[in-house]
């Protein structure tokens, strides 16, 4: 089972690399490093802050876009190319296919993020030099990776029953809603009766991306507590595991004939 999962994971990663997904990294690093010296000229006393905000926001946005655009083709592409039938005719179970694909996408995104992070730190080095507090930014990047876990799981879930375009729309819509998850929770807190029940249910059902965004906080050199890191990690893992479990349940019942 492990070897089958590893094989699917590595193949998904190789396929993404072959799709030139990582080309965006060159663009990202080039843009960031090239524009870094400009930040000093367009703003007074804020060059580091602007660079941090632009860099971290770009890592997040690039990652989410890649997660959605690779994830949506997960099942449909395999059906279109008829490779899915070849895979499933071997001793590979459907859940292994989904979980393996998911892990492959995560691997792609982690490598992608690691390289973008390297580029980002090079830009910081070029602009103002590195300081101790710059290590705090790694927490923001780690939380961004946790966001990718959830976005990818949701994209995989939608791709098991919907067309690529609708999967992209659904996943992106959930990303936007999740960004305002705490507003939804506050709305639930002040509602009454049936509206309160519905809003509370929706608030817990929607992913919470708000608590996974600490870009502004870390950009201002404010630390993030260890317990928050722990519970955010657990939350992202459990939420993405739920979404992948739901994807498996749908895919197990799907008629592929």
């Amino acid at each position, binding site marked *: 089972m492990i070897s089958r999962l590893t094989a699917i994971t590595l193949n998904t990663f190789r396929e993404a690399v072959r799709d030139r997904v990582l080309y965006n990294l060159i663009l990202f690093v080039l843009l960031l490093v090239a524009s870094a010296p400009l930040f000093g000229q367009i703003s007074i006393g804020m060059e580091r802050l602007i660079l941090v905000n632009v860099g971290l926001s770009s890592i997040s946005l690039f990652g989410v876009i890649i997660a959605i655009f690779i994830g949506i083709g997960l099942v449909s592409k395999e059906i279109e190319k008829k490779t899915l039938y070849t895979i499933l005719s071997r001793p590979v179970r459907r859940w292994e296919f989904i979980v393996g694909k998911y892990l492959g996408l995560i691997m792609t995104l982690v490598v992608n993020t690691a390289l973008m992070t390297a580029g980002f730190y090079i830009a910081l080095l070029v602009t103002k030099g590195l300081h101790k507090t710059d290590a705090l930014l790694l927490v923001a990047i780690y939380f961004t990776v946790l966001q990718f876990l959830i976005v990818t799981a949701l994209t995989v879930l939608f791709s098991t029953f919907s067309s690529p375009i609708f999967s992209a729309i659904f996943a992106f819509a959930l990303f936007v809603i999740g960004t305002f998850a*705490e*507003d939804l929770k506050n709305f639930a807190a002040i509602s009454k009766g049936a509206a309160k029940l519905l809003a509370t249910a929706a608030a817990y059902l929607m992913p919470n991306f708000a*608590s996974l965004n600490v870009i502004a906080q870390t950009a201002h050199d404010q630390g993030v507590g260890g317990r928050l890191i722990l519970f955010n990690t657990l939350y992202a893992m*459990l939420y993405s*595991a739920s979404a992948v479990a739901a994807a*498996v*349940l749908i895919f197990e019942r799907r008629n592929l004939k």
Partner: protein
Amino acid sequence: MNRNRLATSLFAVLLVLFFAGTVLCRSQVEKLRGKEVTLEEVLYMPSGKSVKRLSLGYSSLLADIYWTRAVQYFGEKSNQRSMRYDLLYPLLDITTDLDPHLIVSYEFGSLFLSQPPPEGAGQPEKAVALVEKGIRENPSYWRLYFTLGFIHYLDRRDYKAASEAFFKGSEVPGALPWMKVMAARMAEHGEDRSTALYLWKAVYDTSIDPQVKDTAMQHLASLRAEQDIEQLEQRVKLYRERTGVLPSRWLDMIRAGLLPGLPQDPDGTEYKLLPDGTVDVQDPAKYRFLDRNRNK
């Protein structure tokens, strides 16, 4: 049970367990982050105008979200009887930068800001700045002048500025005639209780929001109780002058012909006669603006 069914059952159980886990984790995350953490983002924002540029044309939607956040923040702080409302003005400023025509945010936001703590933020100067911004953006909306005059009168005790605001508002086409009357009263009898009664009556009659009506009603009741208490204390003084002692109960004053019957507050409850000859209401919670008006 075949393998497929086993996998389906297993993943169904996992789905439920994992999802239950997310609910628990999320509660923990919310506890750790605190309720105001999303709102505190405003402290990191350079200005509402830059937020507007980043909103990609959806500034009205974003303004609605920020307005909702401001209301929730105010409600939360107000329920806690908080003495500090640090994030209120930044939230309102960003809301009105995002949508300068969101009248409700000027009207209610300025009231949230101007009222003294714990009912409000106790920042009348910022309330004035917010309404003046609203007037600059919406010069034809006369009610904002009314709000401005109201804040000058009630929270800043600047009767001249209040009179000017009412007067300027009365010149806006469509303004109701009592704006002129209000301007005149402010100029001549700014400190009179009758002016306050007139003002709150106007708020009560013209507002369609039930909460504003309720607040106006409470102010009117407090003002009327204040008027009654002042008259009753004068009669107690008279009783003392006549008899040389203070009355121990209302019946003493009724027998002395100084009261026609048991004095009742606007709610119909009997007033309290205290041993030192002062008068108070039985339930101060019903007249939460009473002390403030008495100290005027």
